[in-house]
């Protein structure tokens, strides 16, 4: 990396990049492996793939009613099933910004940059709120 690039990139960005890289790699790897296990028939399924065309064109509410698929964090209990196992990879991808933000907040605080430390924590709060499943059920 050239000196000019280093000049423009603070330690916060470098730390954020490092943590993000690991999180994204882990999420993608788990996503692909779990899906391969599912397609390879190495995991039991709740709904046979051949039956999916009957439900994947239904609106979400009808799909949930017909299949009994879980909402919220209910999929965690079904992780042993191939059709839900890949959701763990998706959850990791959707969560991997949280450790990045938590990793850089102390650096901002150390530099006396309280506003950005607070921004990081507020973003974590938004992501946790979104992930909590507490927000209104639409179906």
């Amino acid at each position, binding site marked *: 990396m050239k000196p000019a690039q280093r000049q423009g990139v603070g330690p916060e960005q470098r730390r954020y990049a490092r943590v993000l890289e690991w999180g994204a790699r882990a999420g993608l790897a788990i996503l692909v492996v779990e899906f391969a296990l599912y397609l390879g028939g190495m995991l039991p399924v709740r709904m046979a793939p051949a039956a999916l065309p*009957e439900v*994947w064109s239904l609106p979400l509410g009808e799909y949930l009613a017909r299949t009994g698929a879980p909402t919220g964090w209910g999929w965690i209990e079904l992780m042993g099933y191939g059709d839900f196992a890949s959701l763990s990879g998706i959850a990791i991808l959707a969560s991997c910004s949280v450790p990045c933000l938590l990793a850089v907040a102390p650096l901002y605080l150390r530099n006396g940059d309280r506003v950005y430390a607070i921004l990081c924590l507020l973003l974590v709060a938004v992501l946790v709120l*979104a992930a909590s499943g507490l927000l209104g059920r639409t179906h």
Partner: protein
Amino acid sequence: MSGHSPPFERRRPIGSRRLAAAVAALVLVAAVADPACAASATPQAAIAWWVWPLALFVVCFALGVVAVPAGVGGGVLFVPIVSGFFPFHLDFVRGAGLLVALASALAAGPNLLRVGLADLRLALPLALLASASSIVGALIGLALPATVVQIALGVTILAIVALMASAKKSELPEAGPPDRIAEALRIHGVFHDAARGEDLRWHVTRTPLGLVLFTGIGVLAGMFGLGAGWANVPVLNLLMGAPLKVSAGTSSFILSLVDSSAAWVYLNQGAVLAIVAVPSVVGIMLGARIGARLLTVLKASVVRRMVLALLLLAGARALLKGLGVWN
């Protein structure tokens, strides 16, 4: 995300006829996958289940190839095309669309941050508002009837086509003096422009308006499952005065936060089907790797025009499907 065309047009371009054949093949695959076409030849139920995810993978791979040289994110192509020409319900397509945009943004994020093309100080305030509003957008989108969302999606896609066709871009815009918020948050930086071989200082202006617009962009991203680079880049570049490359890099990074929030809403509501999401994510990411390599040989302006034509078709399809004219 951003247009990269000028530097690459000097290289030997692949003939537009060959490119047209590639895009025609893409459309053909999508047309074959069209449930209406399928129904006319073979009842949909008679088609083996694995044909659809396989076709989805192939189409997404092709979308990934053309998205990079066309300077758009995969999400904006994915949702209208897949919802228009595949049998999956729009609810699941939007969930997958968010994941496509999220995975692409996460994959690109670390490098963009390291080379200074994504800037944390610029991104975090905008991402906070856009992330919060994307949750609202996702909840609204999942609560509205599918026909309403379909019509709104069609109108939005056609507006995006108009925006992409008409919007100017400025490599290094003349940003006015920094506003109070930009000064207080010290939103400025230096990046090394390899094409020019020099270090460029930048700052932003009109931050309050940028914050308002990013709030609206977040709602649209959550509601339609679109990546929002098509809107982020013009706001960062033309309104706030960030250099084009910093705008494109920061836009991509912002998507990694905004789409995470909205993706959680779709996941919690049960609107993520692995059989739709995973082939899409893997296909578009593999295609994007090829697309990035083809950057040096493809004529970007031709690809861009073809992608605009494809979006026009997909936007019209979404609108007419929502209106019940073309089911």
